[in-house]
């Protein structure tokens, strides 16, 4: 199994990870190795086997639709790289 540099770049873009051009061959090699390793799964006989999503087959609990969280905007926004007037700042999105 070999991904090739173009596929590696495509995956990195989907994952929103900047990867330098110099590192592409190593990612290609490592990711291809990992994918070849997991190829073994295709040998397993899984007809009529249900996919397992939860170890003890519990279902997601629902809670009452009530307000439980108090407003802690200032506390949380103090952690932001950039914020102003209660807003998170990012580079201009709309021209």
């Amino acid at each position, binding site marked *: 199994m070999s991904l090739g540099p173009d596929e590696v770049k495509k995956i990195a873009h989907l994952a929103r990870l900047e990867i330098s051009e110099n590192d592409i061959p190593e990612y290609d090699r490592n990711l291809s190795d990992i994918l070849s390793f997991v190829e073994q799964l295709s040998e*397993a006989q899984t007809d009529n086997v249900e996919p397992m999503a939860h170890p*003890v087959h519990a279902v997601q609990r629902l809670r009452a639709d009530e307000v439980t969280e108090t407003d802690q905007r200032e506390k949380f926004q103090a952690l932001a790289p950039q914020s102003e007037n209660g807003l998170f700042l990012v580079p201009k999105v709309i021209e």
Partner: protein
Amino acid sequence: MHNKTLSQLSAELQAGNVSSVELTEHFLGRIEKYDGELNSFVTVTKEQALEQARRADEQISAGTAGPLTGIPIAHKDIFCTDGVRTSCGSKMLDNFIAPYNATVVEKFDQAGLVVLGKTNMDEFAMGSSNETSFYGPVKNPWDTSRVPGGSSGGSAAVVSARLAAASTGTDTGGSIRQPAALCGITGLKPTYGRVSRWGMIAFASSLDQAGPMAQSAEDCAHLLGAMAGFDERDSTSIDQSVPDYTANLNDDLSGLKIGLPKEYFGEGLDADVGKAIDEAIATYRKMGAEVVEISLPNTHLAVPTYYVVAPAECSSNLSRFDGVRYGYRCQDPKDLQDLYMRSRGEGFGEEVKRRIMIGTYALSAGYYDAYYLKAQKVRHLISDDFRKAFEQVDVIMGPTAPSTAFGLGEKADDPVTMYLSDIYTIAVNLAGLPGMSVPAGFANGLPVGLQLIGNYFDESRLLNVAHKYQQETDWHLRVPQGFEG
């Protein structure tokens, strides 16, 4: 004082032979003395620890203290601690001061435990050697040229070197048990859903589980009692009452049925590790246990299954790190896309990026069925192997890891070889079962861990089986050379 178990420390505190402040200062002194070499802490919270210790002393003199009040421990740096940096071993969170406490942290605080600091770990718990940490690798106290295991390597090393009385860890594929084995301590991964994941930074949500790391099974029993329980803030928490885990520690083992999976004793297992495990099994035979060979036929598929399921879940969980709301942001982003790509590209280390990319690939259009769905089906087969085994036996035993601690850098360049160091622990997470690692002797001077695997919610039995072994042996009392004094 630092070699005492939790029960012994508790007795000393209650009797007034030592105060919690003195005990805390003693451990802080050891950290100062030894941690430069070990690198097991990311953050030491001296002031907060002494403040907690003063509160504990007041409770002890007022007679309102519990059995764990005043004992100094350490948290893995994956648990959010209000007002204290919570880095998860990553540059991404190097500047992150958690705004709230994880449930485990809150429960320990209520139990009166004193927090000495936050322990080093593989970045986002992704690693088996602690070498992926942004803060550099932890060294194994038994041989500082070797790894402590991972991802809870710092937590294992602090207990091993007696820099804290106990610690917390998390285990997604072996991250409590494997470092416990490599550092010669006792560690327990509870049943999935037994301990709340709230405030524990997520890696693979269907596998992650927190648990105690300590000198002995008895200590783990005390700590698990303080950690476990239903939490409505964790949607996968199981609503089941918490037993007194210390109640059955001394139950007799005669008639206990132990299963040895033949797949755990085959090719790939270091011969000297195998010998230590055989001797441990012989000790159980002497205690009256019955040993039978069993088979877990899909064992060879566990690591490949994990390396689809865990990266898939991690790629989704780690999408929250966007450089906007908290954590690392790149310099001078030219647009929003550039901000996301560079903040993540610069903020995450290599192994984390690899796993995010594997997960992204496995979940992407056209590949979902072949990878993720297929892995979820094989996961069912692996889980069924255990279900069938537990119709026959009470507990499953084998080695925790295929070898003793390996050298720093030895496996760092080859991800797949590194992944195989979790070959005996990973299936337990896929099935959601509880598992333990218990010190079971040495191979070439390095600790060997015996793994015990129990049925769902059978932690009491695991602790009992481990405790009885520790009454017969003294491996868990051994302290690495250079850290005794």
